[in-house]
């Protein structure tokens, strides 16, 4: 088991490195033209371009630039803005890149480095800082929703599988169909309307995000609606999947063996049946959670949670390169990390994986 975990860990590190390399290439190497020309403004003099190039590090070899990028990514962008930003800060528009105002640069907020996450073109804040603020919001949203959809989805799936072709099965699968078909934005708006406009306890529920550290109760009440709305879709999927898997598993020979041993049916289902039917769900779960890190856009928008999904859309719409880089890297990390977790949990659940 130890060997296996180490192997998976190394693999994950490698994947992360490859992802950062791809990101670097896609965002910094592939765009045509010399970036320093764009940064040097409308009337670039050769001297200015050379200066920008030097200060951006573009005069160095690509591997060096990449190393630079990596360092910035993991360790932050340094304390001061590089000098080059001061002359640049007056420039209103850098070709098709967007406004780079004095604001952020003049105050010397950390994080304007290039390459690296740098400064958002759009909001003039450091991307890194933005990510640090937004990540907990999205994680809170995902965490709560994941707990709900797992518990609800798996329970409904189990009941449905065991009471196959009864009224309970029909009801459960009806719910699943509703959950899968109902669009999140509609569901979210309806939920908001019912719970905050129509019902008396509207004060305690709300939109927006309250930090857990400041007000745990507020954190919970503000998130309960988005959790439920987000979880509904997934709960429906998981209910269907659990049902299908469990029905298949209960037909396996080893289930018959468990019964032939004289085990009570409850134990046959929960110890022998569920364990085998949950392993595929672990894989799904890991990927779903990871993808939601950058993908809970609608829920975040409807409930006004300034999370990563939100940020991803904003930055994509306004071609905010540094912000996009940041989101892409974080989502990639999340996927790699969740894959690692899934692999380890899977190996724990299914010994055959460990030994192969």
């Amino acid at each position: 088991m130890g060997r296996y975990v180490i192997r998976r860990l190394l693999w994950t590190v490698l994947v992360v490195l490859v992802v950062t390399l791809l990101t670097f290439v896609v965002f910094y190497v592939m765009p045509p033209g010399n970036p320093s020309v764009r940064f040097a403004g409308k009337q670039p003099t050769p001297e200015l371009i050379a200066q920008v190039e030097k200060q951006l590090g573009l005069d160095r070899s690509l591997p060096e630039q990449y190393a630079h990028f990596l360092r910035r990514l993991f360790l932050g962008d340094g304390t001061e803005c590089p000098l080059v930003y001061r002359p640049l800060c007056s420039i209103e528009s850098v070709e098709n890149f967007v406004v780079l105002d004095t604001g952020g640069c003049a105050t010397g907020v950390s994080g304007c480095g290039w390459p690296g996450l740098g400064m958002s073109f759009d909001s003039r804040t450091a991307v890194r800082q933005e990510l640090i603020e937004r990540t907990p919001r999205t994680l809170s949203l995902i965490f709560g929703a994941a707990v709900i959809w797992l518990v609800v989805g798996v329970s409904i799936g189990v009941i449905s599988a065991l009471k196959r072709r009864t009224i309970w099965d029909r009801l459960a699968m009806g719910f699943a169909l509703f959950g899968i078909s109902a669009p999140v934005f509609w569901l979210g708006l309806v939920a908001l309307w019912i719970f905050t406009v129509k019902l008396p306890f509207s004060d305690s529920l709300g939109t927006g995000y309250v930090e857990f550290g400041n007000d745990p109760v507020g954190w919970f009440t503000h998130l309960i609606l988005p959790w439920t709305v987000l979880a509904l879709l997934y709960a429906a999927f998981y209910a269907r999947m659990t049902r299908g898997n469990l029905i298949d598993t209960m037909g396996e020979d080893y289930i018959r063996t468990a019964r032939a041993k004289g085990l009570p049916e409850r134990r046959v289902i929960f110890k022998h049946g569920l364990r085998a039917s949950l392993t595929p769900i672990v894989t799904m779960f890991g990927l779903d959670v990871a993808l939601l890190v950058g993908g809970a856009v609608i829920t975040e928008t409807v409930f006004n949670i300034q999370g990563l999904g939100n940020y991803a859309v904003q930055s994509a719409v306004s071609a905010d390169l540094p912000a996009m880089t940041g989101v892409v890297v974080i989502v990639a990390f999340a996927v790699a990390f969740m894959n690692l977790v899934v692999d380890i949990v899977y190996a724990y659940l299914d010994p055959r994986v460990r030994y192969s």
Partner: protein
Amino acid sequence: MSQLAEPRTMTAERPGGDALVSVRNLTKRFPITRGIIFQREIARVHAVEDVSFDIFPGETLGLVGESGSGKSTTARLITKLIDATSGSVVFDGQEITGYSRRQMRPLRREMQMIFQDPYSSLNPRQTVGQIIGSPYAIQGGERNVRRRVQELMNRVGLNPEHFNRYPHEFSGGQRQRIGVARALALSPKLIICDEPVSALDVSIQAQILNLLEGLQQDFNLTYLFISHDLSVVRHISDRIAVMYLGHVVEVGSAEELYENPKHPYTASLLSAVPQGTGGGHHRVVLAGDVPSPIDPPPGCVFHTRCPKARMVSGSPDEVPENCRTEFPPLGEVEPRHLAACWYPLKAGEELRQAAHR
């Protein structure tokens, strides 16, 4: 591997007559790789090791062995579904070992296969007519495909009017008849039957076996008949090769091999078959399981379980040194009866049960 010796001549096996298939020193090792980025080979599955035999026109050669003995791999090597690690296969006078896919194409019609599972080896979306007729299309087309297919269907005992039916409308035995008809369609020289009756009910098995025998007479077919069922193999084969852990350990006429086995493995295998005579017969129960083909025992691969070696050494825990160190060559023990054993059984010699378990 020391047993990869120079090719031996096998003509002693059956003097006169040119073999349709000549297999010499055929070896297949599947690499097992491990590694995160760079796959390095950590071990090899010794699936087929230094196998040599001939199949003569018009005969049925039975290939028996337990699971993992390399029977099916041998068949796949002969048909070149997989490439051999070393050794040669001569089919109808042509050395096909190095043939490319394209070079093999004209030969494909000459060698056909019948598979174990009639359910999964037929395309469920094709009608019987299409399935049986498809070789004509693949091989360049033929007029009156339908008439030809219906003749074939009639010959294998299917109702020709069922031309447009789908496989699921047929019973297991009938599906195997479809498989036989498909194999026959191009009048092949060699038909490889890979466990063709193992998935069928007993009462149906006999129908298919009789059909195969009848077709062989009518069309002068040559069969390589692979099975783990020793009774079936004996019934249908003229000669039999016994495989154990990738090696052919004994080859002989069906009669000779069953009445007078020379290799201790063959003898143990035969004694393990239920005779249907009410117990009581002398049974040599081999201890333990077949060793892993990844790490086969040195010397004779059977020495770890061999009762005869223990009789020779006189102790249940010891075997003679040459059994442990050197693989015995497949040599002629009696005329046309070959065995790979240092201490082949004499006629009538009984194996005593090995003492250790």
